[in-house]
Structures are given as C-alpha cells and as structure tokens.
C-alpha cells in the first residue's frame, strides 16, 4: 500500500516537473564551449551507449563524417584507423545534456542550439538540422555533405547566434503548443512548427548586420526545411524530460533513444541505468524504389518527443500523416487514446483539438506498459541501412517490451521490493 502512495506520488511529481518545465531557445554556440564534458576526440551519438564494432551503417558513416569535419582525419580509412587505435571516445548525447536526430553525431566544433529550462534551470543542446537528402545524420560524409556542415558551422550558426543573442529567446513550449493546433505532432510532422520558427527568426535574422546574401540564404534554408525546428524541439523535450529525471521511486520513462542497433530507455527513479534490447525496423511507407529490406534498425534520439508527450503520442493532432501508419483519422485518434493507457498525466500545455482539447498523454509509466502489454508508439523516419543513402521512408515503431520488463525487475531490485 505504501508502495502505491510512494510510486504514484513520485510519478506525479516527476511528470508535473516535465510539464512545468519551460524550454526557451536562448542561443546558438559551439559544442565544445557549451556542452558539458565536450572535447576534441569525443563524439556524441544517438541512443544508448554503443561501441564501434556494433554500430550500424548510418551511425558509422556519421562518425567518419564528423571526424573529417573536425579535421582529425582526411578519409574513411584514416577514420577507421583512428577509431581502431582507440583514439576516439564515444558517448551517448544523452550523457551530455544533448540529443540528436537519427545518428545524432555531435562533435566539438559543431554549432548547437542552447535550450534553457527557465523553470528548473537545466540546459539541453542539439545540433542544427541539415535538411533533406544526403546528410550526416543518415551517415553521408561526401564532400558536399561536409561543406554544407562547414557552411552551417561557419556562416549560418554565427548568424543565428547573433540573431538569437539580441532576442529574449524563443519559447519552444509555446511554439509546440501552437503547432499541435496546426496539424503537427512534433516529431514526424514539423511543417507548422518550422514555419512558426521561421516567423520568429525572420525579423531577428533580417535585423542582423550579415550580408544580404547570407541572410537571404539562411532564411531560404530554414524555410525550405520542414524539419528545421525539429532539433530545437528535441532539445526542448530533452530539457523537459530531464526535469523529470532523478525523482526517487518514480517509474516514469525519462529517455527513449535508439542508436541504430539498440533501443534504450532510462527511468526517472533508476539513476543513469539504460535498459536496452535490439531495435526493431519501423513499419511504414517507403519512398519509391525502397522497401523494408533497405531499412536500418530504428535510430535516433528524436523519441525524446514521445518521451515528453508529443510525437506519436499526439498523433490525434496530426491526421495528415496517418497514412504513414496506413490509417484513417480515426486511427490517429486511437493512437493517442492508446497512449493515455500507459502514461501518467495529461499535458497542461500540449492540447489536442480533436480530442476536445484534452492534454496529450505524458509520462510513460513502465508499470502500465508491462501490465497492459502496450509499448509506446513512436513516429519515426526510416534510415537506409547503408551509410549515406539517407531517409528511405517513415512510419511507426515500438520499443521492445523486454526493456520495460527488465526495467521493472531492476526497479524492484533497486528499491528492495521482493
């Protein structure tokens, strides 16, 4: 009986913190200057910890690309040599207050968004979104990929830093709340959010002293990319989820992440432990010419959106993308209704018009996942299994049930519940 009170109270308190967190995009800076523990030979990656030998194609490609970008190597073979000589350290983004989409590889010289949770004071970081096509986050590292990254680091990044520096910051929670009312769910669909982001940045960018050409190119770049807000959104979700982490006795999930090989979760009341199992292949629609045979196992930190109560959890807000899960608008409603079964609270800020403005389901409780046999739904992009090919589709994936069961047993051990 006392367990119940303890766990219920702890979970409520954790998720209340998650909801109360107010993530503000305050600026852009260089990773090594802001991310705690960042250093030259450290590469951050998506998902739970993983060693080079077990990395999938897209993650390996992104690692190689990042080493080239950092100027540490000139070629793939040099990169592999350096890694095999043990001269490169790897760590999950999550261990450094950071999140990254797909491969999520973040290196010391990259520009990153800075999110400050003004309610609780914690920070979170995410790199800048490269747009579509051949991009590092899908493991591409050809010359054009690297030169685009250099441009982002050397020209767009400083301009955004300068622009944001003159502002009070952008309230990402408010932006998301509005985007959910415009057909976004915040993970796979960020069209509305990216336009809202552009709308807020445009006056700041145009007001800067950069060249007309640069200002125009940056605005074009941000506007062409319907995912431009994804990275600050992910960092905002990370800041919110982190606010819920470390609550004693809480069984709430505070991180879900995939590295392309394993799916991992962390639990608020279980310190820094990861519970992992092989990641599945998403079920969804493929771009012409591709099929599930081309798909990499699930990858990326973007599941932080579902962790924070949006993404697939707010699917009812985004009927336009139900075709990814081969469904009807009713299926979109059902997806969100299902997530209420395994979550702790309804979000106070993220509301869903089609559900009579009910708050989105927030704070996955591992007890409910195991009891009802319902794993969290995740909307995701699908990466090609070979480095550098890029996105081949989008769809739905669910984490393996075993990691929730394992977490439950670990919880019982940790708190001496026999």
């Amino acid at each position, binding site marked *: 009986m006392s*367990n*119940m009170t303890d*766990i219920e109270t702890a979970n409520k308190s954790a998720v209340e913190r998650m909801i109360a967190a107010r993530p503000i995009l305050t600026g852009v800076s260089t990773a090594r200057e802001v991310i705690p523990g960042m250093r030259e030979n450290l590469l951050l990656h998506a998902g739970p910890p993983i060693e080079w030998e077990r990395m999938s194609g897209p993650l390996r490609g992104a690692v190689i690309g990042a080493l080239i970008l950092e100027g540490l190597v000139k070629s793939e073979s040099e990169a592999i040599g350096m890694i095999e000589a043990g001269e490169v350290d790897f760590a999950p983004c999550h261990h450094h207050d950071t999140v990254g989409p797909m491969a999520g590889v973040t290196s010391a010289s990259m520009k990153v968004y800075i999110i400050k949770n003004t309610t609780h004071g914690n920070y979170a970081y995410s790199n800048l979104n490269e747009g579509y096509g051949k991009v590092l986050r899908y493991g591409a590292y050809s010359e054009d990929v690297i030169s685009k990254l250099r441009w982002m680091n050397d020209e767009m990044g400083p301009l955004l830093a300068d622009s944001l520096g003159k502002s009070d910051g952008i309230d990402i929670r408010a932006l998301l709340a509005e985007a959910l009312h415009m057909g976004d769910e915040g993970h796979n669909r960020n069209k509305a959010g990216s336009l809202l982001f552009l709308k807020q940045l445009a006056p700041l960018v145009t007001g800067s002293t950069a060249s007309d050409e640069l200002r125009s190119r940056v605005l074009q770049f941000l506007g062409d990319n319907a995912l431009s807000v994804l990275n600050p959104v992910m960092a905002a979700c990370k800041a919110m989820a982190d606010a819920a982490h470390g609550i004693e006795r809480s*069984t709430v999930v505070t991180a879900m992440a995939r590295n392309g090989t394993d799916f991992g979760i962390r639990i608020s009341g279980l310190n820094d432990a990861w519970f992992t199992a092989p990641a599945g292949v998403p079920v969804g629609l493929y771009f012409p010419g591709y099929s599930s045979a081309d798909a990499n196992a699930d990858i990326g930190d973007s599941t932080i959106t579902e962790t924070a109560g949006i993404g697939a959890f707010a699917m009812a807000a985004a009927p336009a993308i139900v075709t990814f899960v081969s469904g009807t608008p*009713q299926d979109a*409603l*059902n997806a969100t*209704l*299902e997530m*209420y*079964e395994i979550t702790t609270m309804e979000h106070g800020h993220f509301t869903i018009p089609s559900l009579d403005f009910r708050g989105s389901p927030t704070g996955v409780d591992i*007890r*409910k996942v*195991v*009891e*009802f*046999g*319902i794993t969290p739904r995740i909307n995701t992009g699908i990466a090609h299994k070979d480095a550098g090919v890029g996105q081949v589709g989008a769809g739905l994936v669910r984490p393996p049930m075993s990691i929730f*069961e394992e977490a*439950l*047993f670990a*919880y*019982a051990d940790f708190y001496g*519940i*026999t």
Partner: protein
Amino acid sequence: MSATINEIRPGAYFDSVVLMQLQRELAQLQGVIDAGVVMATPANCDLLISSGFSFDEGARSDDLLIVIKADDEQSAEKALAQVDQLMSRKRQIQSEGYLPKSMQAAAGQLPHSSWVLVSVPGRYAAKVARDALDINKNVFLYSDNVSLEDEVELKKTAWERGLLVMGPDCGTAIINGVGFGFANHVRRGAIGLIGASGTGLQVITSEIHRLGAGISHAIGTGGRDLDEEVGAITALEGLNLLTRDVETEVIVVVSKPPAPEVASRLLSAAWGCGKPVVVDLIGHPAPARRIGSLHFTSSLTDAANVAVRLIQEDNESGIRQRINPEESTQRPKFARGILAGGTIAYEVTIGLQSVLGPFFSNLHIDGVKHLPDIWKSQEHTILDLGDDTFTQGRLHPMMDNDYRIRRLRQESADDEVSVILIDLVLGEGAHPDPASELAPVTAELLQKAQQSNQLLEIVCIVIGTDEDPQDLNYQIEQMNAAGAKVFQDIGEAIIHTIDAVLPVQSKEWTEQNPELLTMPVSAINIGLEIFSESLRSQGAEVIGVDWRPPAGGDERLANLLSRLK
C-alpha cells in the same frame, strides 16, 4: 481417414464467446468434422481431449489453441487458413472507435459511468473488481471462481465506500430498466427484487411480468452473500437502495440457503425498512406466513404472486414505520420471555428468532441456543417455565406465580432488557386470578424502570375465553391497568416485541449514492463483449474494455506489478 491439425498462438488472448463463435464457424466449413478453439488452460485442454481431439503439447494457459479435425489434411489446412479472416470479421464490427485496454482509460472516456461489468476469467476477476471499486464504480461481477476471501474483501470495501458489488457469479440484474447479464425483458413497475445470482431472479421477474405487474430494479447478490462470512452485505445494501427508491413499493428477497444468523440480520433490516417485504429464503424455515410487514413464501412463483397481490392491495396495513434512530440508539437490546405455556414459548421463540437473531432457551429447537445456566438468562432468552427443572418441588406456573414473579424481577433488573414476555393461560385448573398477583409486580417494575429511564415493556399474552372462570376481560383489565401491553394473538405479541427490540437500523445503512438506481445506466464492460452489445441495445451508455490478462499472463511480472501498486 480423418486428419487432425492444430496451431498454437502464444500469448493471444480472446474472450471465450469470440472463440466459441469462431469454433462454430470453423466447424461449419466444408470437410471439417469438428473444431476446438480455446485458451489453452489445463481445464480447456482436458475438455478437448475428452471430446476426442488430439493436439501438440506445450501450449500454455495464455496461448490460443486451435484444433481442427477434418475429413482430410487438405480440408483441415484450408480451415486453419481461414481463422484470421473469420476473426477479423468479428473485430471489424467494433473497430470503429477506440477500444480501451484498461479500465482507467475507459473511465477517462466515460467519466460519469457508475457501473463496471466484470466477466473476465475468475482468477483475474477479483483484481479487476477491486480496481473498479478503487475508481469509485459499482460492480456487476459475473465471473465465477472468485474465492470467498476475495468476495468478503471486495464487499467490505464496497460497503465502506458506499458502493455495491453484485456477485460474484451474478448472472442477472435489472437496474433502472436495463438488464445486466442474462435478464428478461420485463415491464417496469413497483416491485424491487434482491436475489442470489440469476435464474431465481429470472423466474420471479418473468412471473411478475406474466401476472401483469412490473419490476423497478432487480439486484443480484451472488450465491454466497448470505453465508456467514459475507454477512449479506450486498443484500443489505440492496435493501437500503430499494427502501429509498421511490418507485419501489414492495420488495422481494430470495436467496439460496442462508446462514441462520445472517438471515435474521437481513430480515431485521427488512423489518425496519418501511416497505412490505416478500421473503423466500430457500431452506430457511418460515416462522409464519406473515410477521408484520414480512411475508414468507415457499417458492419462487409463490413469492411473485404474493408480491403482485401486495402491490394490488396497495398500502396494506401493518407496514412498520422505521424507528427513529435517535431514540433507538438508547434502546436496550434484548427480549426475555418467561412463559408458562411450552407451545406458546416455542412459537414465540421461532417467530422472534427469525427476525431478531439467535435466542437462548431451555426448549430444544433447531437453531436455538441452549441456555447454559437455566437460572440466569443471557442476551435474547425465552424460557418454558413448565420445564421439569422449574417445577421440582413447586406447582406448575399456570397455578403458582411465585417463581415467575421472582424471575420477572430478575429480568427487569438487567438494564440490557427491553421487553419481557409473560403469558396468562386461563381455564379450568389454572390459577383462579393470575393477574391479581402479576399485575402489581408488573406495575411496580414498569414504574421503577421509568424512574431510572430504562425503556422497558412487559408484553402479556392472555389465552382463554370469556367463559373461563377467571373472567378474561377482568384479567386483561388488570394487566392493562398495570401498564402491560396485552395481546390475545401470539403473532401480534411477536410483532410488537420485534418492533420494541429491533436493533438500530442506521447501523446497517451505508452511505450509498441514493441516485444509483435512478441515474441512466452508464457502464464499463470488461470481459464478454456480448454484455456491451446487450447494454447498448437497451439504450444504456457502455464502453467495452479490450481486456488482456495483466503482463500478458506472465505470472512473475503480474506478481511484481501487484507489489508496485
């Protein structure tokens, strides 16, 4: 040469109705001799084996087992291949909206629902019912195989929270015109019922309908509600609800054989409810055809007939008013009878005990407790003073009042006594003027009681005729003058005594929602889907839960989860 093939689908739970329909449809396919589709519990597997099916070993309780026996291998394979199609046809009907997987989610979709119908397998049923009580819902517990301990715990919890648990193993109920489980379509009317579990209620409600009257509500209790351990919790709550229900004018209580003390407890509550109550407690001897507002019947149809007659008679006399609780809290609890007539004592004991609960006596009657010390009464006691022990060395009390007067003083000195019954038996051979000796002591004792604020009554049964030598009227006058309540009819004396002694009613009532029976029925259904469809077709609001065993039936995880609640 026939062929039998099987398929085991691990961890795929379906309710038995779906599986039975599937089984029937499979069996109708061409070339199929027979089909078995079950959750592979040991009991179900045994059943299949005994029906002549053979299948692979190793299926677990939470696996779906499909066995098909056909004329040949090809027909069997063909039938097996159709399983998914047949099942999805079933599913399609209800895949429109979202089917919640948990009661909590269902409650979120239907927050004002007041009922949860539970028909999951027995080993999960108690937990589901407990969860329903935890979110403040009343429970219709259709599931059987719920342990007595669980039933007691559920009902006690419900009692404390002012909620109702109908069942377990409750097949029938009618609430506000909506039949739960297996219920007949009956006319709406003024007769409210409380019954054990199913067919009994169906028999009576149908009979009442046939006789032209109607049903207000029918509350199911489950077959063990009147067992000693359960103590009629649901029946008492049902009685409370029907008592307060404006529509209900006559109440019928039927049950399987009750524990005697529980029966008395229920009847004592029925006595005080202020409405006529027709009682058919199978195996519980009726003390009389009628005691006050309680009408005892000996069969289900008899009960229906009496109830309908009572409705037609309208406000019949003899309905007890409920005792003012404030007054009754100060009431002493016990009745004592010191009677000269053995048969009178016998009849009084049986009559009083049926409502007031256990009596002590020197009479040897089934269910009446043996008084250990005949010279000292305890709790409710009726004594036959004509017993040999009392008459040794003295005359029979019909002739000699000496010991009776002493005993009258002794009983009245006990401040837990509220009524003392005595009898005056007149006629040849009896005392020539018994009232001349008993009236003065009656007056004295009543006066003394009044001075010390003790609520004491002396009830005097007078048996005789106006032609008897003692002069019946003169005897009655003397006793009346002394303040005794005089009755010539033993039945009326019993009724008066019960009224005077009846325990405080308010103790039996819980704080139930008085609108539970009059609100439109709105329910969450967990288990058999046919119950959802049935409620919906009757115009009730219902949401079905797509229920699965916790943790997919993994015992180890389920146990762990129960400790993390």
